[in-house]
């Protein structure tokens, strides 16, 4: 029995090798949701779009904006009009030509489709003007520094107007875009198969006939699939598997510090639950922050593969404020702050966390560290769905959550910390911070924006409504034959130039 198995395994291995050069198999951490850029909401969905749907703008590994379907753009003097030159000769997968009309349609759809989740991202656009077959102007009410970055993400993904008009809100079951690969088929929770689009404008850079995305949620199993040769690229290798993956000659590792963060959001003004010492006194929040050894946390839970952090931007980001370096752990100072706040004998606080392994591990380490400073943390585990609801409703005192990160700094801070912000679950409200963050939105001057963020940071450090802990690192595992892969801080898997040798 065993010998028979071994033999077939060998045979299988041989036949699999022959087929691999045609098909690239990518294992993702979870299944994508609906494949309509206007309705989609998951991170893995964005990974699939990288191959399926081209955007107006893209980013370089250094996070500079470059053209993709737009080749060039310019602002008018008061930065309320963005004129874009479009790539010529591009067609959607159904043959519909890509032109200024198509861009106008896409922006209108993002704004008006009732199911659209892109509304806030393109809210600043008041109108579009088709200036020529390949030239379009976007009109804004006021300058919007974040717009180009939005157009480098789902809001800038162009779908075929013909297909979209026909399918309406059901577009996602058979998406038609203009990316290097066209939609072939999908079995929910099992696979998404894309096939090469022969008429792609950059087809020379594409080396596969098909690409198959397989959702494999379990970290161990996902890596095992790479090691056994069943997949070629895996998304999010867990940090603790890094050593073992590196030791395997059949596996290559690539990584990039992400744009996102993980931290503890504290309810300071979202309903009655904010009325507790932690929510009312920033000294206790700062004591909590001081009690945590962020580097040790990173070492223990992530083998040091992530980046410790204390701001919404990672330390290697140009937006990081060097005036507030990552604090050393200071238990005595934490105790002193607690005493100052009126709790010389310590205090008990409650923090909710999702019931999955990694956040639980982080919270247990934080719990142990805080205990030494006299802060007893009670961890309340909740399912993610429940946690989200309680958080939105203000039914929590503190919550361990993160953010996957956006290219423009505004995306990591504005909606969380401005009064009435879309995801301001903390209920934080400070007129001065609002002013700085709003101002940073409406100027395209990078130096001026940075100045504004730094000023806001000074206040936010004092108030600490959100205690940042670390920035995850994207870690990809590649089969030994994979070449030309470039890691990006946005966690996407871009397939241009990627090849697989046998």
């Amino acid at each position, binding site marked *: 029995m065993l010998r028979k198995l071994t033999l077939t395994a060998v045979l299988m291995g041989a036949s699999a090798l022959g087929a691999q050069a045609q098909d690239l198999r990518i294992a993702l951490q979870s299944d994508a949701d609906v494949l309509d850029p206007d309705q989609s909401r998951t991170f893995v969905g964005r990974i699939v779009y990288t191959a399926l749907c081209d955007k107006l703008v893209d980013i370089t590994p250094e996070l500079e904006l470059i053209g993709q379907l737009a080749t060039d753009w310019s602002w008018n003097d008061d930065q309320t009009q963005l004129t874009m030159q479009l790539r010529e000769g591009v067609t959607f997968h159904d043959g519909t030509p890509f032109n200024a009309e198509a861009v106008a349609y896409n922006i209108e759809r993002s704004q008006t489709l009732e199911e659209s989740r892109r509304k806030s991202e393109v809210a600043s656009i008041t109108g579009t003007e088709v200036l020529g077959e390949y030239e379009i102007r976007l009109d804004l009410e006021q300058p919007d520094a974040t717009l180009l970055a939005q157009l480098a993400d789902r809001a800038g993904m162009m779908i075929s107007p013909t297909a979209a008009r026909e399918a309406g809100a059901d577009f996602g079951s058979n998406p038609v875009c203009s990316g290097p690969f066209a939609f072939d088929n999908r079995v929910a929770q099992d696979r998404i198969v894309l096939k090469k689009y022969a008429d792609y404008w950059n087809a020379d850079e594409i080396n596969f006939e098909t690409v198959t995305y397989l959702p494999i949620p379990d970290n161990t199993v996902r890596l095992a699939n790479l090691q056994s040769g069943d997949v070629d690229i895996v998304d999010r290798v867990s940090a603790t598997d890094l*050593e*073992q993956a590196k030791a395997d000659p059949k596996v290559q590792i690539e990584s990039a510090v992400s744009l996102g963060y993980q931290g503890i959001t504290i309810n300071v003004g979202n309903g009655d639950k904010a009325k507790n010492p932690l929510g009312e006194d920033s000294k206790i929040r700062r004591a909590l922050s001081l009690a945590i050894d962020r580097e040790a946390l990173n070492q223990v*839970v992530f083998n040091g593969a992530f980046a410790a952090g204390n701001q919404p931007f990672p330390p290697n980001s140009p937006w990081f404020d060097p005036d507030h370096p990552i604090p050393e752990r200071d238990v005595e100072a934490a105790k002193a702050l607690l005493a100052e706040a009126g709790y010389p004998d310590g205090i008990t606080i409650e923090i909710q966390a999702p019931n999955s*392994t990694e956040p639980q591990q982080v919270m*247990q380490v934080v719990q142990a560290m805080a205990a030494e400073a006299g802060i007893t943390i009670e961890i309340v585990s909740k399912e993610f769905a429940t946690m989200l609801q309680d958080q939105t409703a203000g039914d929590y005192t503190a919550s361990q959550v993160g953010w996957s990160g956006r290219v423009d700094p505004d995306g990591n801070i504005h909606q969380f910390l401005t009064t009435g912000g879309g995801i301001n679950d903390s209920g934080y409200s400070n007129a001065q911070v609002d002013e700085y963050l709003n101002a940073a939105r409406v100027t395209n001057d990078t130096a001026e924006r940075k100045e504004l963020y730094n000023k806001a940071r000074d206040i936010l450090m004092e108030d600490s409504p959100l205690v940042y802990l670390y920035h995850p690192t994207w870690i990809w595992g590649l089969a030994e034959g994979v070449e030309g892969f470039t890691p990006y801080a946005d966690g996407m898997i871009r397939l241009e130039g990627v090849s697989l040798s046998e």
Partner: protein
Amino acid sequence: MAHVAEPAGAEALDAKSESRVWKKFRSHRSAMLGGVIVLFFVLLAILAPILPIPDPTATDWGAVRKAPSLAHPMGTDEIGRDVMSRLIWGARASLMAGVLSVAIALGIGVPLGIAAGYFGGWTDSVISRCTEALLAAPFLILAIALAAFLGPSLGNAMIAIGLSATPIFIRLTRGQVISVAAEDYVESANAIGLPTMKILSRYIFPNVLPPVLVQATLTVATAIIAEASLSFLGLGQQPPAPSWGSMLNTAKNFLNQAPWMALWPGIAIFLVVLGFNLLGDGLRDALDPRET
């Protein structure tokens, strides 16, 4: 996975048969082995606070995921806690989950089963239909839905498992009651006008007890696995307190670097469940009047 109970015969437990049962049970070697295993883990669970072991929640950043050694005979876990200590304390959670959830199932299932079986008619129809409905929903799916509804915690997992296991006991008890109620002595007790409560407590209940006891023992085994399964899905015991299932849930992320984290709790679950299964088997044989 729930056992499909092999019915044991009905038999009143008088003093004589009791000693016979015990004798039979004692001579049942594998049942004794099961008893010893269960006793061992029960003792571990009870003695956990006074055993000379480290605090199961004490972390040590310097000893994260260390292989078994003299200091840590079963190694340490992902944040430097002693695995052996967590295993011993985890016995409490796992055994409690097994026993209490079965207690819940018994507490609800047996009275309902007796009511359905003894009173028959309308009562029986309502209870039986509900039982069938619950039985038709797969055990684990039911438990997952209930545990998700109640929120992830050990107590809620026990309630979820207990409720999911209830229909088995309703059905078993009902069947037993119906067969006993048809016996001559019950009918004659009825005829001489003995109060219902008395008939129930004197004749029906003692006869229902043996098969229920067997099923309960076997269900404890099922319940321990169910708790481990729910914890494995993140719906059982919550950190930092240990249970075997939640230890396994974490351990599955470190299979390559720290296989001992998965090995010991897996073995512990296996042994305890085996113990209860052996015990249940022995009980069944001992209480079964057909075989001598």
